[in-house]
């Protein structure tokens, strides 16, 4: 089936994973790839576990990625990295945003948030990267641009052309937030 890139983007509802998958897919389209994206809009809610799957290559059939078939997992939240880790390829890479969003059973004190997630993931997956996207985004002017910082990191890792990604950001981000987001992208890219 030739070259294919499978990216699993996971996080918590409200973190902006959708914009990230949209930017990556848009760049892949501009580069002339066949592209498929899958997102399940369940019961619209904040705080739910969300996953976007982006696949591109010469020809893509299934919009969903098989377990053990993701080249990269981009986790907006630590626990979500652990939850979806079985989707990663044996030689795949995990990018973890150093962010903790407590699930309800943790908030109500019924369950514990697992300790040292990124160390545990790192011990299993040689190619694990942890990043403080929110801190970087805050320095760029708005904490909410953390998702675009992560676009920057991901773009460098998978080798997307900077100019194309910037153009995609220009197309998809509202103009008043554009400056901060372009800065966030650059910071993520050179991280």
């Amino acid at each position, binding site marked *: 089936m030739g070259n294919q890139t499978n990216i699993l983007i996971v996080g918590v509802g409200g973190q902006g994973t959708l914009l990230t998958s949209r930017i990556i897919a848009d760049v892949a389209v501009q580069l002339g790839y066949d592209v498929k994206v899958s997102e399940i809009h*369940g019961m619209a809610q*904040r705080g739910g576990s969300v996953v976007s799957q982006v696949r591109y290559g010469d020809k893509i059939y299934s919009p969903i990625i098989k377990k053990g078939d993701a080249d990269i997992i981009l986790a907006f939240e630590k626990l979500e990295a652990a939850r979806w880790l079985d*989707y990663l390829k044996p030689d795949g890479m995990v990018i973890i945003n150093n962010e903790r969003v407590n699930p309800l059973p943790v908030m109500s004190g019924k369950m514990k948030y697992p300790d040292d997630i990124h160390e545990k993931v790192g011990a299993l997956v040689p190619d694990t990267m942890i990043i403080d996207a929110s801190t970087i985004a805050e320095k760029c002017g708005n904490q909410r641009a953390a998702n675009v910082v992560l676009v920057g990191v991901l773009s460098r890792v998978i080798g997307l052309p900077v100019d194309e990604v910037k153009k995609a950001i220009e197309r998809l981000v509202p103009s008043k937030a554009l400056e901060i987001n372009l800065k966030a992208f650059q910071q993520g890219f050179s991280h």
Partner: protein
Amino acid sequence: MLKYLLNEDEKELYQTGGDKTMKIIMTGNEAVARGAYEAGCHVAAAYPGTPSTEILENISNYKEINSEWAPNEKVALEVACGASIAGGRALAAMKHVGLNVAADPLFTIAYEGVNGGLVVVTADDPGCHSSQNEQDNRLYAPAARLILLEPSDSQECKDFTKLAFAVSEKFDTPVLLRLTTRVCHSKSLVELEDRLEAPVKPYIKNAEKYICTPAIAKLRHVVVEKNMLLLKEYSENSPLNRIEWGAKKTGIITSGISYQYAKEVFGEEASYLKIGMSHPLPDRLIKDFAQGVEKIYVIEENDPYLEKHVKSLGINCFGKGSIPVCGELNPEIIKKALLSAGGETGYTTGLKAPSRPPVLCAGCPHRGMFYTLSKYKDAVVAGDIGCYTLGTVPPLSVTDTVICMGASITAAIGMEKIARREGRKTKVFSCIGDSTFFHSGITGLVDVVYNKSNIVVIILDNSITAMTGHQENPGSGKTLMGEIAQVVDIEKIVRAVGIKEENIRVVDPYDLAATEKAVQDAYGAAEAFVIISKQPCALLKSVQKKRAGLSYAVDQKKCKKCKACMKIGCPAVSNKNGEIKIDKTQCNACSLCAQMCKFDAINKVGE
């Protein structure tokens, strides 16, 4: 692009619009909307329902199409039927269970046929991502004698929608376009074309066709059955059904998203019969394909719809023997079922990851009412379809049954009948949202009054269709096309139906004392009682703007750690190692937790 779907003799007939080719990435739902636009559709109607909602939301962006949110799916389909009879091209869209509501007009419009093309979109939900069942609506097509089309990606969503209008007119019959969640919500590339201006056809009164009295219906049934034979022939020759020869050891018959999964798993190692038109099915083509391959697998989600048909032709094939009927398919399941391979996972951390279950949002106006109801332990509460189904989640744990849209009121009537008959001291409540009340609650309330049911109906009016993502409804004051609309007044409906003045309360669920008083009055009433719990959805932009910067915070010095504030199950309130905290990014100052606190330890912050 549509041309690849047309037979040679049809290419002249169906102009496909301009040749402007531009590829953009779209969801299946966006592509259906685009298809309707390009096909020259004039009228579109729907009731929101995941995964179909975005079809009409996107159609409303095309001002050439007169689009509307109907109060329910039956209304939506009937509006589309009328537009078609009057000569326009019309579309109705709904989720799978919505087609049950619209089944009445569906079966009869199949007898009457169309004037302008009529397309009915059903969005099924294998895997119950956001539905109360996973019924397979392909079965409606043979039952109602409809053409059934099943696209497998966004390009096909657009092309099949366009073609549907044309074949609907050619064969004088409505077309059922069946999508599934994965097709609706996955994105893939679509080539855009210009809109084809299909002029509205003249309307000529035709009582022999459009008035299904028994005498006429009997004759129309004969016409429909004859038409099915023509359609069968069309299905045999249509490029909608095609063979892709590959290795001949394995032959795969498949449709919809399952086609994509099958290609993913088998690639060139199999031959495929790709079914795009699933009713009527092409018998000769299936037989030809069967003769060309050694072993046949039928790969489809949910019911063995194709498999049963293939077997009825005397062809040996394998399907549901190993592919599950229940749940959504994916390439992994197919690989495991048919190749005894797959399921290889990369890594496991062995960590127990706490789940993130859906809960009522922070500041949700339903919370105050459900907390109040949770105190009446001997009450039975019939629930309904909407965000407020989440009233069942602990610690609120209110709701005894949920069946379908509108069933809260009517199931409560039945429960109360049994309770009364058996002398049980159970008070029966029902909870229904504003949009669901307009959808199919009003008739239930009529039954309450007419048949003297002693239940309490609580209408949770948050002034929007919330769960599907904030669609306008008859009570919200705006239409899908953005026009100001007259607000249909729920209180006036309740009065008009005949609920007595002294048995009606309108309360603000953010006021716990007032809510408690209303529920108490209702609990003690010996007649039908209605409470309208009125407060707009906390996620509405207008509400968020009004309460921006406002939140509540815990004064740790005053806090006695009694956890009374946690009984309301608000996701903004947490217990961090014994310290009660309120997340100010989530909190929008509904004040419920402060009302719960007996020690004055929770106070408003910001102004």
